[in-house]
Structures are given as structure tokens and as C-alpha cells.
């Protein structure tokens, strides 16, 4: 059986800003369909520049990017944005219409020529994002969480196969983060490829299987999140702190629970501790 080609291929990409700053240096990576990837690193590492090259907002100075085996240099931003949905940090940068409904329609206008179809799709999007009750409301009067939801809906309605989020958990409360996790879970089931830039190490550690770590415009590590974010050298280099679960497992292994040295997930630690406590209780009862 032939091996499936990666959905995204980035080949030796450099990007130099007009002021001479080299933001990306020899970046090469591949991402397969349905993968979920975190891009992490300190501010100025080149994370946002990298994702902006995916939908053609900036073109690589050197190197090529292929999406579905097609060179992005040959495609316009409008064409690429149908495949790559880039969701920006600040929702107020894209909301301008008189109502929530109009905001969704603006994104769909290029895709649906027929008015009835456009209305039906708009209704569908409003329903699936639970924004129906705000249909007539001005996007400028929505709360922070709601306007973020609307910004996501206005990109998602175009049904891109690759979703790219820039700091989606920034400034979000626990409930909002939880509903975002549910949302990306449902998109993952639809075989969408998801790329997330985040500084939220706990979130990446728990939910994202693969992490790309960047520093000074280069990729310094690429692999399973639990391994990369458990590595003291790599996290320090990227100004990150070890995830709390990793800190806990290290602290416990230092006081004698050696088996925990290589355990990194919250679930495994809980399971291990429950087992230890059960054994302890049984032995106390027996005494």
C-alpha cells in the first residue's frame, strides 16, 4: 500500500522581514491530514510568521510550501484561505458588520452565489456555534468569549481542511477553554488538521499529541508533546516551565516513588497513586 503524502510540506523555508530581521531560518517540516500539532516557543521565535506563510499572507523568501501537493506560491491568499483557516488572536481585528448574521454572511459571500443557499448556510453556522440568539446583535456588543466564538465561526463556515489557531486560550476562562477543547475534539473527529500556537503548556501537554518547539526562527524540537515538554533543557531554552503533572511526577520520584520518573500523564499518575494508596489502606487494615 502506498504511504499517504503529508498534507503540509514545508521545505527549507527562510523568511526575512523588509527591515532585515530573519524570522524563519531553514524551516522544514511535514504535517499529515488529521494531525493535531502545537507550535510553542518564546515570543519572537517565529511561530506567528510560520503560520502566516501557510495561507500566503507572507511568502517565503527562500523555500517552498506545499498544501495537498500544490505549491502555495502559485495560489492567491483567497484561494489558500479556503483550505487554511487562520484564526487570529484578537477577534476585534475582523468583526465589522452591523449584525452577527451579516458577519457570517460576509465570509460566505464568495462561496455561495445563490441567496437562499447563503441564508441556509448562515442559519446552519449560527445554530452550530450557538450564536442564533445573537443573530441581530452588533458584533461589537458581544462579550470577549462570544466575539471570539463569532470570529472562529466566521472562519469555520468556509469549511477549511486545515485550522490554524493563534493563541486560542489566551485570556479565556476555564469554561471557555473547556468548550474550545470540545470544539477541537469534534473537528479532529472530522479529520481536520489542527495547528495551534500556544504558550499554555498545561493545555498542550494534556491535549495535543505533537509539539514543534521554536527558538530564534528555527525548529529546535519536533515530536511527541509528552516527551518534548518533559525535557528540562528544551523547555528552559524556550522559556517554558515544566508542566505541573511532570513537576509532580519528578517530585514524587525524588521522594522514593521511582516508578513515576517516566510517567507523564495526569491519568497515569492518578492511577498509580490510587493503587499505592489502596495497597497502603489494605496493609493498614491487615495490621
Amino acid at each position: 500500500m502506498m504511504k499517504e503524502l503529508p498534507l503540509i510540506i514545508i521545505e527549507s523555508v527562510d523568511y526575512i522581514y523588509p527591515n532585515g530581521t530573519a524570522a524563519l531560518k531553514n524551516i522544514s517540516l511535514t504535517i499529515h491530514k488529521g494531525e493535531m500539532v502545537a507550535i510553542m516557543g518564546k515570543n519572537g521565535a517565529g511561530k506567528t510568521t510560520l503560520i502566516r506563510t501557510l495561507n500566503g499572507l507572507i511568502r517565503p523568501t527562500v523555500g517552498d510550501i506545499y498544501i495537498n501537493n500544490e505549491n502555495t506560491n502559485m495560489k492567491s491568499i483567497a484561494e489558500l484561505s479556503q483550505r487554511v483557516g487562520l484564526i487570529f488572536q484578537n477577534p476585534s481585528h475582523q468583526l465589522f458588520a452591523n449584525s452577527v448574521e451579516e458577519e457570517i454572511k460576509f465570509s460566505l459571500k464568495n462561496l455561495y452565489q445563490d441567496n437562499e443557499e447563503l441564508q441556509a448556510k448562515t442559519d446552519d453556522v449560527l445554530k452550530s456555534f450557538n450564536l442564533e440568539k445573537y443573530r441581530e446583535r452588533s458584533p461589537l456588543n458581544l462579550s470577549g468569549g462570544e466575539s471570539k466564538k463569532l470570529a472562529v465561526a466566521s472562519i469555520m463556515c468556509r469549511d477549511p481542511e486545515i485550522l490554524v489557531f493563534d493563541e486560542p486560550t489566551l485570556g479565556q476562562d476555564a469554561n471557555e477553554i473547556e468548550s474550545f477543547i470540545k470544539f477541537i475534539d469534534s473537528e479532529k473527529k472530522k479529520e481536520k488538521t489542527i495547528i495551534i500556537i500556544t504558550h499554555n503548556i498545561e493545555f498542550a501537554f494534556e491535549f495535543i499529541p505533537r509539539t514543534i518547539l521554536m527558538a530564534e526562527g528555527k525548529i529546535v524540537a519536533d515530536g511527541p508533546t509528552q516527551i518534548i515538554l518533559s525535557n528540562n533543557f528544551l523547555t528552559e531554552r524556550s522559556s517554558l516551565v515544566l508542566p505541573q503533572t511532570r513537576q509532580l511526577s519528578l517530585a514524587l520520584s525524588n521522594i522514593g516513588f521511582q516508578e513515576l520518573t517516566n510517567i507523564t500523564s495526569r491519568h497515569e499518575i492518578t492511577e498509580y497513586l490510587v493503587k499505592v494508596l489502596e495497597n497502603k489502606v489494605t496493609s493498614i487494615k491487615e495490621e
Partner: protein
Amino acid sequence: MSLEFLNAFKFMKKESFLHNLDPRTKLILALIYTIGALLYNQIMPLFFIFLSLLPIVVFGKILKQWVKSIRGLSFLVIFIIILNTLFISLSFAIAMVLRICIMVSAFSIFFLTVDPNDLALSLISMKIPYEFAFSFSLAFRFVPTIAIEAQNIIDAQQSRGYEMQKKGIISQIKNLFPLLIPLIICSIKRAFNVAEALESRAFGSNKERSYYYTIKFSKKDWIFTIYLILVLTTLILIRIQFNSMPAWFLWGLPL
């Protein structure tokens, strides 16, 4: 679309005769050249006024940024040429392009070489209330920030399929709404945030202010100002005697 050209109005610290001049001298320069540009509708005098700015730009070590600011005018230049040629004449169109280039160059020299802090001080020395002087220098300081924000808005809208280049003037005007509305909203929000930040730092609590340093109108400022006044006087005299000028000075395209 890039708003990179707005950086051509961003102050950069350098060592040059222009940078060392008092901000008031440079404000006089900007105003005198603007008046000079408005005095004439003909190609030749405007061309000479424009030419006289070049040595200032070169010796002021801002040639690269100045070229960027002029390049940023390309869209406006095309617009001016088309409209003026259609309704008046090509000669007039070229003269108007030169006029806008002189005015933008004069203010570009000012913005590129005046430190926003010095600008506030110079306004205060002109007896303008501190609150106004501070607001003006703050607005000046925020130009590059707004340019970055505008670029982010363009990127965000393009990411949802918005197309910048549409045919037809009405479509192009309509096309500006998805950019202008978020930009205005973000700027208003920022203004409120800055106002709150200033008030929380007791802005305006003391009527009497003291300053780290004060600016001084030096000998070289006087010399340069006298030169500028001479330039303006000459331009006014030529304007009055314009019809008795040699034929080549009155030259224009037959169109």
C-alpha cells in the same frame, strides 16, 4: 497590500545637521514648503521647490526613508493624474503630483527627524497647554502602532476570503469598510485604555511641571530659519512677478 510605507514617517535617532535642529525650525520648514507648494500651479516652479528639498534630505541622512514615503504615494499619484488629466490637463496633473510630493516630503522630513518627546517640549515652549502638546505627541507616537494594527486587520480579513483588489471605484470604496471599521474601533478602544492608564498615573494632578531637559533655539536654528524665510520671500516675489518670468519658467505641456 502592505502598510510598510507608514514606517517612512517613524522617527529614527541619527546624527545629522537636520536631526540636531530644534523641532520648531523643522516645523517652520514643513510649513514654508507647504505654503510654497500652494503658491504655484505650474510645473517648473514646483519642480525647483521639490529639487531644493533634496539636499536637505541627503544631508539629513534620511534618503532611504524619504524614498519609501514617496513610493507610498503611488496610488494617490495615479488617482491625481487620471482625474486631473481627464478634467483639466496633463500639465496641471503633473504640477499637482509635484505639489503633493513637496508637502509629503516636507512633513516626512519633520516626522523622521523630530523625537516625539522633543515635539511636546517645543509645543509647550510655544505656549500650547501641556495636555494638548502631550496628546499631539502621543498621536504622533501611535502612527506606527496603528500601521501594525491595520496590517493585522488586513491579514485577518484576507484569511476569511476578503479580496483587496476589486474592480470599480464603488467596489473599492465598499472594500474599505472591513478594514476601516475594526481599525476605528480598535483605535477608540486603545484611546480609552491610554486615557485610563494616564489617569491612573495621576496625569494632570500638578499644574506646575518640571522637565528633564529643555530645548533651545541655537545659532544654527536661527541661520536655517533665516534661510527658510528668504526662500519663502523669494517664492512670494516670484509669484507676484510670475508673468514677467522667462518663458522656460512658465513651460507646460501642450496637453
